[in-house]
């Protein structure tokens, strides 16, 4: 490791007594004392949430109100604090969505563990999980702080879908357009 000797600035006598510096500091703080507060009084005043804010992770539905998550568990895998826990399941025959084959039976996000990193959103191949503008989570018990699947969908709502990937697959399967 290289040692770089630095010349210290020699202090003047006034500086060595600290007094002028302390006085100028006192001036600064006194000026500040007379100015209005900078802070926001939280429960009454709420911050404006900018777009792209990483709030509580939620599950979203497509514009037809259908579940987008296919429980691939990539978010569970990528989650650094292991906050996500998914129980995968099969989509039952006759539900109209059996061509998706797989969907979450249970989807729990432990908000006591979540660090709001957004990796789950980034990794999701189905664009089913989004960190939205909800930022305030409270609860009296640990159990309350775990968002279950229904709560996640309630928080998430519906987001526009540019692809409708599974609809295209269904159409392809019904019309057999390849052959």
């Amino acid at each position, binding site marked *: 490791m290289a040692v770089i000797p630095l010349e210290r600035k020699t202090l003047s006598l006034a500086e060595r007594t600290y007094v002028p510096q*302390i006085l100028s*500091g*006192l001036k*600064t*703080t*006194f000026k*500040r*004392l007379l*100015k209005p*507060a*900078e*802070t926001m*009084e939280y429960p009454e005043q709420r911050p404006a949430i900018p777009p792209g804010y990483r709030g509580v992770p939620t599950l979203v539905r497509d514009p037809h109100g259908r579940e987008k998550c296919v429980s691939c568990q990539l978010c569970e895998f990528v989650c650094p604090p292991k906050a996500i826990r998914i129980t995968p399941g099969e989509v039952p025959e006759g539900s109209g969505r059996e061509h998706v084959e797989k969907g979450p039976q249970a989807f729990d996000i432990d908000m006591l563990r979540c660090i709001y990193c957004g990796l789950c959103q980034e990794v999701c191949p189905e664009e089913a999980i989004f960190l939205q503008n909800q930022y305030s989570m409270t609860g009296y018990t640990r159990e309350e702080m775990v968002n279950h699947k229904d709560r996640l969908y309630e928080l998430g709502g519906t987001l526009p879908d540019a692809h409708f990937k599974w609809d295209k697959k269904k159409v392809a399967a019904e019309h057999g357009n390849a052959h």
Partner: protein
Amino acid sequence: MIDFWSSLHPVVQGLIKGLAVIMVIFPLAGACSMAERKVSAWMQGRPGPNRAIVPWFAWIPFVGTFLQRLGVFHLMADGAKFLFKEEPVPGHVNKLYFALAPAIAMMPALTTVTVVPFGAYFNSAGEAIPLVLANVDVGLLAVFAVSSLGVYSLILAGWASNSKYPFLGGVRASAQLISYELSMTLSVIPVFLWINAPGTPGTMSLAKVVEFQSLPGFWGGTWFVFLMPLSAFIFLVSLFAETNRQPFDMPESEADLVGGFHTEYGAFKWSLFFVAEYSHMIVGSGVFTLLFFGGWNPLPWLPLADLVGWLHHATHAAWTLHPLFVGVLSLGIFLGKVVALIFIFMWVRWTVPRFRYDQVMKLGWQKLLPLAIANLIFYALAIALIQKSA
């Protein structure tokens, strides 16, 4: 009333005085802590504590809201919290000394108050009678003697806590307080050299110092801060160090010692240390006011007696000469100065960063002490010359 007071048994008198000290100092210390929170908040661009309110006060329009915004109810909430919190006593401490330390901290803090005069009234002969609980002639010496005992509580707390950070805090406290006491004592000697001319009966009374600052004439009415600015400066700096206030709060030093000597303390025991610190600050400010800021004299070259005389002259009202009015007036003036000083304490705390420990020691021994000695020598010579010529 005074007769009734005099007819009471001295022990009862003492008890009442002691109770009065507790009743006054505790709320004052609490108010100081509140003020500290508010001042720091304003300096940092925050509103500060502004939530707690007693329901009945909430019904009062404007005033209730104002008091709430000012945070005065947080003071009560804090007090109640300290009283009712669980008292944690860590398993590894020396229980007796651990419990003793806060009590010992309180003793000098409250005792010094008794010898500090806080006002004056004029008797029928026109003499100023200082308002003081115990008008001892050793005055300042008593203050120094008793308040320096306060360090024992810090050492005891640090030692009894039986863990590293409190121990370091205690060690630092002892070294620091001893170092700065020297400069402090030396810095006030010129004041007493000034008031104790050869041939006059010697005194260390603080009231006498004020008396000297109320004398007529240019030199007489000069507050000692103008006469001996260097003494005042050294005394003020040492006062900061003696009261463990920023930038000298080495014994606590949250950044490196967690909480210093009181790391292991909580709830009421901790609040006693807290109150002790603030009462030291109040007493220190009081002593400083008496020594250098003219005590209860409203302005330099304007003694209390003149003010009362003007008031009487302007109003022709008899009550302006009543001892009670004069006492309250002088008390108000005195308290105003003390409060201003306390504000300066806080102002400095939220402005200046903490010194390093080696800087504290260096400053104390290598800067302040030589300066105090030089100051003393200079004033000793100067006063000798002046008094010889006079």
